[in-house]
C-alpha cells in the first residue's frame, strides 16, 4: 500500500506540523502532541478537551476552535494518547471554570483519560469526564467493554462546545454532552479495510463481493460479513439498526459520514437513500451533514449517526462554529 508519507514513525508529527501551517489560529504543540485553540484559556469558559488515536481526521484536531473543542490530544494512529497529553491540555485550557474530557469509549482511551484526570486533579484543575458510546453494532453489557464511541462524538463535541461557548458552567456542559450521547446512535459499514502506516497492509481481508456490517473506526472487522449490497440496501440496514435502538419520536440530526476512501459523490447518493429510508419510517431529519468527519484512514465505507434533538439542542447545533473541519456562522 502506497502512502503519501515520509516514514510511518513521523506520520502524526508531520500531520500536526501541516495542521499548524494551514491553521494559524490553532496553537499546535508538535512535541507534546496537543492542539489548542489560540485564545485559550478563554476567561470564564469551561474548557473542552478530547482526543484519541490518530487516523480519524478531521476528528479531533480539526474540531478545535470557537464553538467546539478547546484542545485535542492525538495519539499514534489508532492508539489512544497518553495521560500526559490530556493533563497538559487541561492545564492549557482551564480558565478556572473547569474542564470537560470527552472520551470515546475504548478501553485505551478510558484508561489513559482517567489517569490524565487524576494528574490534572492533582494540579488543581476541576475535571469532569463524559463517555461517548453511540455504536449500536456492539451489544452493550456490564460485562463487556461496552459500545464504541464513533460518529456521535461529533455531535457531543459540537453541542457541548456551543453550550460552553455561551458560558454554561461545567455541570451544565457535562449534562448536555451526556444528553447528546444518550440521544445519538451510529452504525458503520466497510467496503474495504484500511491500511495503517505502521502495518502497511490492510487490517483485514475483505474479498471482492463482500462487505462488513457493524464496523468501528479502527480498521477492525465488523460484526458480520455479507455479500455486497446496494446503497439502498445498506441504507435500509443502517437506518433500521439505528432507529430500532434510538426509537426517535421527533426531529433528528443526521451525519452521513465517509470512512475516508469513499468518494463524496457516493456519499451523497447514499444520503439520498438514507433520507428515503428515514422518510419511510417517518423520522424527520432537521439537519444533515454529509462528508468525511470521523474516518478510518483510507477505508471505503460509511457510517450513519442520528441524534435526537429538542429546540435547545437544535439551537446549539446552529450556533456559530469555527474550526478547520466544521465551520459556520462566523
Amino acid at each position, binding site marked *: 500500500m502506497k502512502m503519501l508519507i515520509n516514514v510511518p514513525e513521523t506520520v502524526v508529527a508531520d500531520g500536526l506540523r501541516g495542521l499548524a501551517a494551514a491553521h494559524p489560529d490553532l496553537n499546535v504543540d508538535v512535541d507534546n502532541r496537543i492542539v489548542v485553540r489560540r485564545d485559550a484559556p478563554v476567561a470564564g469558559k469551561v474548557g473542552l478537551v478530547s482526543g484519541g488515536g490518530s487516523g480519524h481526521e478531521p476528528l479531533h484536531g480539526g474540531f478545535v476552535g470557537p464553538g467546539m473543542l478547546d484542545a485535542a490530544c492525538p495519539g499514534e494512529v489508532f492508539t489512544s494518547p*497518553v495521560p500526559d497529553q490530556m493533563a497538559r491540555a487541561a492545564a492549557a485550557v482551564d480558565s478556572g471554570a473547569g474542564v470537560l474530557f470527552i472520551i470515546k469509549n475504548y478501553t485505551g482511551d478510558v484508561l489513559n483519560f482517567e489517569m490524565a484526570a487524576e494528574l490534572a486533579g492533582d494540579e488543581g484543575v476541576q475535571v469532569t469526564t463524559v463517555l461517548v458510546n453511540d455504536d449500536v453494532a*456492539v451489544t452493550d453489557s456490564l*460485562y463487556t467493554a461496552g459500545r464504541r464511541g464513533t460518529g456521535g462524538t461529533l455531535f457531543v463535541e459540537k453541542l457541548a462546545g456551543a453550550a460552553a461557548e455561551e458560558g454554561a458552567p461545567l455541570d451544565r456542559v457535562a449534562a448536555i454532552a451526556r444528553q447528546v450521547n444518550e440521544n445519538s446512535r451510529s452504525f458503520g459499514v466497510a467496503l474495504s479495510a484500511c491500511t495503517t502506516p505502521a502495518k502497511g497492509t490492510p*487490517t483485514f481481508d475483505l474479498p471482492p463481493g463482500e462487505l462488513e456490517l457493524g464496523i468501528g473506526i479502527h*480498521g477492525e472487522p465488523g460484526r458480520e460479513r455479507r455479500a455486497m449490497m446496494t446503497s439502498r440496501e445498506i441504507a435500509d440496514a443502517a437506518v433500521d439498526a439505528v432507529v430500532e435502538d434510538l426509537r426517535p419520536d421527533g426531529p433528528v440530526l443526521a451525519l452521513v459520514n465517509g470512512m475516508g476512501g469513499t468518494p463524496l459523490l457516493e456519499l451523497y447518493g447514499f444520503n439520498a437513500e438514507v433520507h428515503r429510508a428515514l422518510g419511510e419510517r417517518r423520522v424527520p431529519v432537521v439537519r444533515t451533514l454529509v462528508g468525511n468527519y470521523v474516518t478510518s484512514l483510507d477505508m471505503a465505507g460509511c457510517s450513519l449517526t442520528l441524534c435526537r434533538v429538542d429546540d435547545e439542542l437544535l439551537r446549539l447545533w446552529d450556533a456559530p462554529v469555527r474550526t478547520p473541519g466544521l465551520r459556520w456562522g462566523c
Partner: protein
Amino acid sequence: MNASAPASGATDPVVDAAYARRWLALATAAVEREADRLTELDSAIGDADHGTNLRRGFTAASAAVEKDPPGTPGGVLALVGRQLIGSVGGASGPLYGTLLRGAGKHLGDAETASPEELCGALRAGLEGVARLGGAAAGDKTMLDALFPAVDAMAFSLDSGAGLVAALGAARIAADEGAAATVPMLARKGRASYLGERSVGHQDPGATSSALLVTALAEAAEGGTA
C-alpha cells in the same frame, strides 16, 4: 518461544537491579523480534497496533533506564512502568504500566528481593491491572497469561523450588495461558466488538505477556539479550 527446561543445576541469581535490567533487555529484544507477529494478531481481532505500541514503549523504557539507571529492582520496574504509561497509549500502555509500576512499588527500595518477594510484587501489580481494566480470567486478555504465570510461580516456590525453576514453571503457564485464549470469546478490549468472530484467534496481549514472563525466566537463567 523456547520452552526447554532450565539447564539442570543452574544457580539462582539474586533479584537485584542488574537482574531487573537483564529482564528489560531481554523483554525489549523479544518485543522487537515479535512486534510484527503481535501486530498481526491484533489485526485479526483488534486494531493492528499491539506490536508497534509495545516496541515504542520498551524502546522508551530502555532508554530511560539506561540514561538514569535506578539502583534497585523495584526502581527499575517502576521506571519501566511509568515509561510505558507515558509512551504507549492504547489499552496496553496503562495496563502493563500499572503492572510494572505496581510491582516496582511493592518491592520498595530494597536492593534485593527474595523470589517470594518478587512473586508477591508481581501479584500486587497484577491485581492493579485487574482492578484498572475490570477484566476477569477467561475474558481473553493479558490476564489469561499473567494469572496462570503468577499462580505457577507461587505454587512452585511453595513447593520449595528456587527462582529459576519457579520462573520456568511460570513461563510454561504463561505460554499455555496465551494459547488457551484462542477458543475464548472476548469480553474486554477491542476484540469484544467482534463478538463470536473473536473466537479462534489468540489474544495479542496474552501473547506479549508470555514474552515478558519468558524474559523474566531467561534473565534468571543468566541469559542476556
